[in-house]
């Protein structure tokens, strides 16, 4: 069955450093991959999307890479700030099942001042 795995443990980093979050998937050929941010008690908020034919996407301090051979995406936050502390969800959508989006369980990021 389709599976998405994200770092199950929380990631703790110091302010100013680069946070790198990993998303691995199996038994899936996604048309695109997305990253969402979720704060406690709130709904997920869309951050970035990368398509299967793209290798890298950037938006301000965020960078996403997508390796369809390794079946992996990396999500980087450069110059991290305490305000970046949240849970980050990886999501895949493909051509099957009406582009149903499948979410990972998320990685909790803590940025310490």
């Amino acid at each position, binding site marked *: 069955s389709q599976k998405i795995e994200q770092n199950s443990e929380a990631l703790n980093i110091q302010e100013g450093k680069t946070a790198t979050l990993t998303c691995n998937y199996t038994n899936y050929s996604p048309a695109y991959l997305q990253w969402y941010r979720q704060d406690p008690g709130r709904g997920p908020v869309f951050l970035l999307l990368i398509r299967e034919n793209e290798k890298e996407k950037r938006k301000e301090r965020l960078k996403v890479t997508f390796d369809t051979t390794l079946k992996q995406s990396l999500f980087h936050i450069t110059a991290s700030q305490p305000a970046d502390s949240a849970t980050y969800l990886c999501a895949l959508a493909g051509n099957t099942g009406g582009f*149903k989006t499948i*979410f990972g369980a998320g990685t909790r990021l803590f940025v310490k001042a």
Partner: protein
Amino acid sequence: DTAVSQTPKYLVTQMGNDKSIKCEQNLGHDTMYWYKQDSKKFLKIMFSYNNKELIINETVPNRFSPKSPDKAHLNLHINSLELGDSAVYFCASSHIQGGETQYFGPGTRLLVL
């Protein structure tokens, strides 16, 4: 202006009761979704509607019945509530079916006692 709104935000009820959750989006989107986020934080799709037509119906007990009176509204009715239904339910919308960016509501926290 709230893009995707849900009511109620909190719902505490007894086993066996019937309850409804309402969702409205003012983004002019064609597609709306219901997701369930359990205690392990997995966000799993339940239903998807496109222009009031049911598109995705995951393996959800038939105690759960979605209704879309128009494309701006998607309600979820749950009959005979069970303990295992306790979770956070999120409504979301996207521009088109299989739309890449999904906009989530704030969630409804359901606790079944």
